[in-house]
């Protein structure tokens, strides 16, 4: 028996045809037609990819955004966005705009240090900034414009039952006037923006008639 290989032209052609047919079949199978919902999802995904370039997470005396900060860090980690944590100190009209407010500034340092720690845990680079403004909303809007932000992230607070802006006036103003997307974390019924998942159903409210 000869141990020399002498490929036959027919064999070569069949071998190539098998390879091409199998590869073409697999390619065709793995690229099925898309549905309307999938096309819409893809477009949204593209839009989001465009907008998430620079993210500002806002803190102030009333706006607690730690949970949102953690979410923003995860977002930045996946999307490679630039992250800026900003603490806005509201300067009363009775004081000059550059007044030294030691207590507030100290508090801002604490909050921003926490924000940095959250980012560090996920190995995300973050810049921090303390700004002073007459109104938190205007301060945030100016900062967003100056930094060319694509997304403002902030936690919400309830201002009071009879206020025209139940989520807080600052948040209402930012949400309606910002030129970029705004992501607001609204407090849950347990007083936290994110409440731990409960397996038990929520307690039933007692009937008014039998409440003493």
């Amino acid at each position, binding site marked *: 028996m000869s141990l020399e*290989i002498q490929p036959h032209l027919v*064999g070569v052609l069949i071998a190539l045809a098998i390879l091409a*047919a199998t590869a073409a079949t697999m390619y065709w199978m793995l690229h*099925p037609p898309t549905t309307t919902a999938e096309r819409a999802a893809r477009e949204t995904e593209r839009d989001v990819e465009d907008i998430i370039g620079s993210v500002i997470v806002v803190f102030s005396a009333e706006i607690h955004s730690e949970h949102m900060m953690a979410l923003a860090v995860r977002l930045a980690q996946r999307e490679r966005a630039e992250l800026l944590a900003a603490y806005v100190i509201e300067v009363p009209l009775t004081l000059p705009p550059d007044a030294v407010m030691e207590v507030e500034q100290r508090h801002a340092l604490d909050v921003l240090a926490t924000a940095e720690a959250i980012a560090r845990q996920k190995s995300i680079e973050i810049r921090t900034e303390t700004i002073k403004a007459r109104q938190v909303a205007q301060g945030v809007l100016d900062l967003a414009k100056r930094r060319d932000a694509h997304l403002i992230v902030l936690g919400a607070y309830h201002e009071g039952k009879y206020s025209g802006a139940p989520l807080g006036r600052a948040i209402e103003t930012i949400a309606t006037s910002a030129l970029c997307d705004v992501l607001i974390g609204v407090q849950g019924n347990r007083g936290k923006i994110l409440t731990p998942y409960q397996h038990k159903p929520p307690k039933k409210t007692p009937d008014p008639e039998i409440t003493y």
Partner: protein
Amino acid sequence: MPDSVSAKKAAEEQPSLRRSVTPWGSFSWGYSDVGADIFVGLGLVLGAAAGASNVAFLFAGLVYVCVGLAYTELAAAYPVAGGGQYFVLRGLGDIFGFIAGWAVLLDFTIDIVLFAWSCIDYLSKLLPFLAFTAHPWTHFGVVFAVIAGLAWLNVIGVRESSAFNEIVSGLDIASETAILFFGFLFAFRPEILIHTMQSAWPTPFNLMNGVSLAIISFVGLESISQAAQETQRPASVIPRTSISLILTILIFALSYSNLALGLQPWTPIPPDAHGHAQALWHYLGNEDNNGAAVQVLASMIPYYGALAALYVPVLGAILLLISSNSGVFGSSRIAYAMSHTQLLPSLFKKVHPKFRTPAVSIVVFCSFAILELFFAALPSLSPFFKETYARLFRGEDGITFLGDLYAFGAATSYSFVFIALIALRLNDPESPRKFKMPFNIPFKYRGVRVEFPIVAVIGFAGIFSILIFTMLTHLIGRIAGPSWIILGLIAYLVYRKRKGLPVFGSQKHDWRSQQAQILKNAGELELMDEYIANVKASDRLRSGEPAP
């Protein structure tokens, strides 16, 4: 109170299957079942059809294309678990649904034994002490242990993961493409193929026998339709994965058979038991090698054969084991579905209290599989039975007996699926068919435009002829196959009579609401809208109302 009613209704609703099967997952679900068939079928067909094995595969392959197209259309139109049994139930009614499902159950039990048997045959190429001819008792014991082990794993709820299936399928496609590519590239000689076909052309009887065995290389496509309920966007994805599976398996089966007949072996072929030289097809089809023909063929390819001889037994054995396991899983799942539609007693939908698996179904059908194993292995275990089989059944060996029954079950259920497809085309023209079999004759039926599928008629003729070939050429299959169906049918009639259900007729089903719900659950909302619009339009047409 409406709220409490809806809450109660929601609580009563069964959790639906998660739609997590991707296009590749759907393909590999089918491939892990049907892809293993060529590992078993090649040797059996070469042993029966000799020089016309490629013709036998071509004939069975053409029938398989028709079967595949029918399943593709039905699975895309009715994306629910249950496969062929559901289509027949819906198209032809309860009793035919039972017969089709019962035939599929026969196939699944054979699937368990045949693939476990062949899995050990492949392993024996690396571990000679498992060889069937040299050590029949060891072979029998290990196959028995594999079946018992699979039954146990399925009872306690352990299955191979989808990811594992997907990886093995991917590796196997790459491996088989490589075997065929290098085989044709290095060692295929057209003159050997022509000479073998001329010199070893079988008798018509053997050719029919070969065709009836060749169909087993194509059984298992319905796994895709059984997973339809878990597939993402089934109406779009299933046509692609089914057609790809049809093409891939057809390419492999036709290529292997032609390669086996036209290969210039790289290593010498050992002489037969009488010391005579033998042709490659004969060597691959003899009792020593017919259970592991792909591995033996691969080892004969220049250069690549040395590598293939090492890994093909392992890869083949894994794929065959998965296929055997799909028989255990599939039989219990079909029995569970048939029990829900009251085609089988409620015993089969009993779930194990601890493991939450249909333990009764698993144990019952694995017991049937073990009975079949005994029947297949007896001639090799005892000279008395060898003599008896030789006298009564022309000396068919165990694996051929299993192959016969496998072909019988598949041909029976496929025949009903073709008839159901035609019936559904006439009675349910409203269901949107994102994929339709080609070549249809449009006409009006009960005032509505329907399309009559020509390919379904051709496919039915083809599969029915294979059923006839199986009955004509296999003595055991001729008795055991119809006996399975008749005994099952008697049990069905008794059960239905006892339960006060229609014995020969069907229970009432609200197919329209079910179909809308099926499409909604499938996430095919556009198709659901189309279906509802079609139903309204055909109702208007039938009642003679003008269009709005």
